[in-house]
C-alpha cells in the first residue's frame, strides 16, 4: 500500500471541479454513444484519445474512464426500449428488459438497469481499489514465466467461453495472434509481414483495428440490414402506480442477484481478455437457475435485468486490475486506455504504484466520481437518451462513419491507419458471417505482442528446458489449469 498521504493527495487531485467536468462530459458522452445502436464507447474512446493529448494525464484518463462507464449503462437503453442492444454487453439485457418495457414499463426497466449497473460497478471499483495495491506487490514477484503461463490460461478460457464453438473460438484466437506477429520481432528486430510498409514496423495500429472491427463493421452491417422503415416505436409508458420507477423493496429484492452478478463480472474482468458480454450471459444463466421471484424469466423479470447489468458493469473496474497489476489490458477498452497512458508517457504496470501513486489513486477517485455521475446523469437524461435511440439511421450511421475515419486518422497518424481500419472492417464482416467471434480475435491481437515477448523471456530464463518449470510452481499450476479448462470446455459443449 502506498503511503496514505499520496493516496489522499490522489483523491484530492481527482475531486476537483475541473476533473468533475471531464468525468461528467465523459459519462454523458458514453451514455449517448452507448444508447445509439451501432456505435459504442470503444469508438468514442478511440476518437477521444487524440483529443485528450493536450490535457493533463488525470483529466484525460478521467474523461476516458467516464466514457467507458457511461457506455456500460447506455447500451441497456435501446436493449430495453427497442429490443436492440446498444452495445454487445447489453445483449442479455433484452431478455427481460424489453418484455418489461412491452408491458408499459420502459422507465421501470431502464431505471432497474441503471441502478444495477451502478451497483455492480461500485462493487467492482471497491474490489479494484482495495485489491490492486496488494496485487501490484505480488505482481512484481510474478516473473515473465508466470505472466506467460497466465496469458496461456486466459487464452484457453477466452477461446472456450466466447462464441458458439470451441474450434471457432480457437481459430479466432490464432488469427489474432497471427495479426500480432506483424511487426519487428521482439528478439532480433527483423521486420515480419511488413510488405514493404515501414508503417507496419511497430505492428498493425491497435486503434485502427479496434474501430474497424467493432464500430465500422457494425455500422456497415446495420446499414446493409436497414430496410428504410423507421425504428419500431417504443411502447408508451403506462401511468399505473409503480410503473415509472423502481421501489427500494424491488431493488433490495434483487440484492443477491446483483451481488452474484457483480462477483461474476469482477471475477471474469480480473482475468485478462474476458469481456463484459460473457459475464452478462453467465450471470443471467445463473440467476435463471435460482429463484425467479414473482415473474418468470424472459417475461420482464427485474432480476433478469439486475443480473445482466450488474455483471457487465462489474467487469470494467476489475479490468483495470490486470492493467495496473501486470500492465496487460483486460479488454478492448482497457487496451485503448493503455494507449492513452502511453501517449502521456506512462507505462501502466505495478511500478505505477511506486512512481505515480497520486495518479493511480486519482484515477480511482475519478472512477468513483464517474460511478456517481452515471447515476445522476442517467436519472436526469433518460428521456434525452430515449430520444437518441430513435434518431434516424440515415443521420446516425454516416455521421458515425465520419467520426470513425477522423478518429483513426488522428490517432494512427494518417490515411494508412484509415486503410487498415477499412480492411479490418471487411475482415470482421467476413469472419462474423462464418461465426468466428471477432472479439476473441481482437483480444488475442492486443495481447499477442505481450504474449510473444513473455514467451521469449520465459524461454531465455528457462533455457528452453521444460524441466526448469518445476522452479516456477505458480506457472505450472496455471498451465495445468489452462489444459483442464480446455478439456472441460470441450466436454461441456
Amino acid at each position, binding site marked *: 500500500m502506498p503511503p496514505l498521504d499520496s493516496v489522499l493527495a490522489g483523491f484530492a487531485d481527482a475531486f476537483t471541479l475541473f476533473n468533475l467536468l471531464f468525468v461528467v462530459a465523459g459519462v454523458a458522452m458514453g451514455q449517448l454513444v452507448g444508447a445509439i445502436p451501432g456505435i459504442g464507447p470503444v469508438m468514442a474512446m478511440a476518437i477521444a484519445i487524440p483529443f485528450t*493529448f493536450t490535457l493533463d494525464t488525470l483529466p484525460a484518463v478521467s474523461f476516458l474512464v467516464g466514457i467507458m462507464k457511461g457506455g456500460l449503462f447506455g447500451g441497456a437503453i435501446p436493449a430495453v426500449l427497442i429490443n436492440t442492444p446498444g452495445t454487445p454487453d447489453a445483449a442479455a439485457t433484452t431478455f427481460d428488459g424489453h418484455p418489461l418495457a412491452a408491458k408499459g414499463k420502459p422507465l421501470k426497466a431502464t431505471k432497474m438497469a441503471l441502478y444495477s449497473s451502478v451497483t455492480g460497478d461500485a462493487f467492482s471499483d471497491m474490489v479494484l481499489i482495495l485489491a490492486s495495491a496488494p496485487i501490484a506487490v505480488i505482481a*512484481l514477484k510474478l516473473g515473465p514465466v508466470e505472466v506467460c503461463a497466465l496469458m496461456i490460461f486466459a487464452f484457453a478460457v477466452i477461446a472456450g467461453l466466447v462464441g458458439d464453438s470451441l474450434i471457432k473460438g480457437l481459430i479466432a484466437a490464432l488469427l489474432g495472434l497471427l495479426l500480432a506477429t506483424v511487426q519487428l520481432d521482439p528478439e532480433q528486430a527483423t521486420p515480419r509481414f511488413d510488405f514493404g510498409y515501414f508503417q*507496419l*514496423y511497430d505492428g498493425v495500429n491497435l486503434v485502427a483495428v479496434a474501430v474497424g472491427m467493432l464500430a465500422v463493421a457494425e455500422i456497415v452491417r446495420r446499414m446493409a440490414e436497414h430496410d428504410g422503415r423507421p425504428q419500431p416505436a417504443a411502447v408508451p409508458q403506462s401511468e399505473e402506480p409503480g410503473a415509472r420507477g423502481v421501489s427500494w423493496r424491488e431493488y433490495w429484492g434483487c440484492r443477491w442477484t446483483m451481488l452474484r452478478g457483480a462477483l461474476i463480472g469482477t471475477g471474469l474482468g480480473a482475468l485478462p481478455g474476458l469481456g463484459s458480454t460473457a459475464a452478462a450471459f453467465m450471470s443471467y444463466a445463473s440467476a435463471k437457475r435460482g429463484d425467479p421471484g414473482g415473474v418468470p424469466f424472459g417475461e420482464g423479470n427485474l432480476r433478469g435485468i439486475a443480473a445482466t447489468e450488474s455483471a457487465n458493469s462489474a467487469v470494467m473496474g476489475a479490468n483495470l486490475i490486470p492493467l495496473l497489476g501486470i500492465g496487460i489490458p483486460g479488454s478492448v477498452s482497457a487496451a485503448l486506455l493503455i494507449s492513452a497512458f502511453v501517449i*502521456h508517457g506512462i507505462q501502466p*504496470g505495478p511500478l505505477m504504484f511506486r*512512481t505515480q501513486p497520486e495518479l493511480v489513486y486519482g484515477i480511482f477517485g475519478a472512477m468513483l466520481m464517474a460511478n456517481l455521475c452515471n447515476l445522476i446523469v442517467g436519472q436526469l437524461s433518460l428521456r434525452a437518451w430515449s430520444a437518441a435511440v430513435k434518431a434516424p439511421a440515415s443521420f446516425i450511421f454516416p455521421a458515425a462513419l465520419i467520426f470513425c475515419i477522423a478518429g483513426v486518422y488522428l490517432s494512427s497518424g494518417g490515411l494508412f491507419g484509415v486503410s487498415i481500419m477499412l480492411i479490418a472492417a471487411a475482415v470482421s464482416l467476413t469472419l462474423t458471417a462464418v461465426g468466428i467471434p471477432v472479439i476473441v480475435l481482437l483480444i488475442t491481437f492486443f495481447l499477442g505482442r505481450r504474449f510473444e515477448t513473455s514467451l521469449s*523471456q520465459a524461454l*531465455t*530464463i528457462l533455457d528452453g528446458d521444460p524441466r526448469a518449470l518445476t522452479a516456477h510452481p505458480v506457472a505450472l499450476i496455471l498451465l495445468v489449469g489452462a489444459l483442464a479448462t480446455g478439456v472441460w470446455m470441450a466436454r461441456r459443449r
Partner: protein
Amino acid sequence: MKKLLLGLGALAFSAGTALADWSPSGPINLWIGFGAGGETDTLGRLVAQEMSDATGWDIVVENKPGGGGMAMFTQLAAYPADGQTLGMGVTMPVLVNLTIRPDEVPFDLDSFDYIGTVALAQLALVAPADAPYDDLAGLIEYSKEKGGALVAFDAKPQELLMGVVNAQSEAGFKMVTTESSAEALQNLLGGHVDAAFNAGAHIPYLESGELKMIASANASRHSYAPDTGTVREAGYDIYVDPWFYIAAPDGLPEETHTALSEALNNALQSDAVRDAIEKTMHTEPADMGPAETKAMMEDGLKNVGSLFGQ
C-alpha cells in the same frame, strides 16, 4: 499616409533581416518520427514552440510514427530542400536499419542536411543494490559462475553491445527482451533478472538505494553518476549513443541551413527546454551544430557496424 506605409514596410523588412538572412515562405513542418506523447514528441513540440517564439516563424508539429522514425525519414528524404520541412528522430533505429538492411532503406546519411542535435539519452546498466557485483567486471565474473546472468534490454543496440562483451569475455550473458524500459525495471526489481538497461527511469531507484549502477553504456560517463565507469573504460571498445536530432532534406541553401541551425541552438538555451529534457530524459540539452552532427552520424554508423560485427 503613403510615406507612413512605405516607412512601416521598410521597418518590417529590416526587422526581418536583422533576425536572420532567411525566413520561411509559410509554416515550417516539423515531423516527429514517433507517435504523440513519448520523449521525441514531447521534446520536438517544446523545441518547436521555443523556436517559433524566438523567431516568429510558424512551426507546425506533425507525428509520423513507424519503424522508430524510418517511415518519417523515408518521406522526408523525398521532400524539397527548402527548409519548410524538417524531421526529428533518434539516431539508433536509423543507424541500425542503415547497417543491417541498407538495400531496403530508400535513403542514406547523405540524403539529409543536419540541423543539429537536441539531447543524448544516457543509457545505464543497473543491478539490484544487494547484488554481489559492483561493476561490469564483477557482473561478468558472476555470470561465469552462475552459468549465464540474465540481462534485460528494450532495444536492439543494447543487446548487441552485450553481445560484443560476451564475445570478448565469454561471460555467457543471457539477454531477456522487454517491451519498455519500465518492464525491464519491473523485472529487475522483482528479482527476475540480474541486470537491466535503462535510460533515466532508474534514477529514482538509485537515489532510494534499491538499485546500483554497473556501467554507462554511452561513450562517456553520466552527469548524475560521474563515478561509474563506461563499458569502454572496462575494456570493450563499444558504446551506444542514442542522440535526438533534427534533419532536413539534403541540399538546403546555405543561409537557410544556418538560420535553422541558429534557431535550434537558441531554442535549446531556454529554461523551458532544459527543464523538460531534464525531467523526461534525465540529461541535458546538447546541440553539436550541423557539421558535428553529421560527423556524429557517420561515426555512429561505423560504431553500429561494429556492434553488428560488420
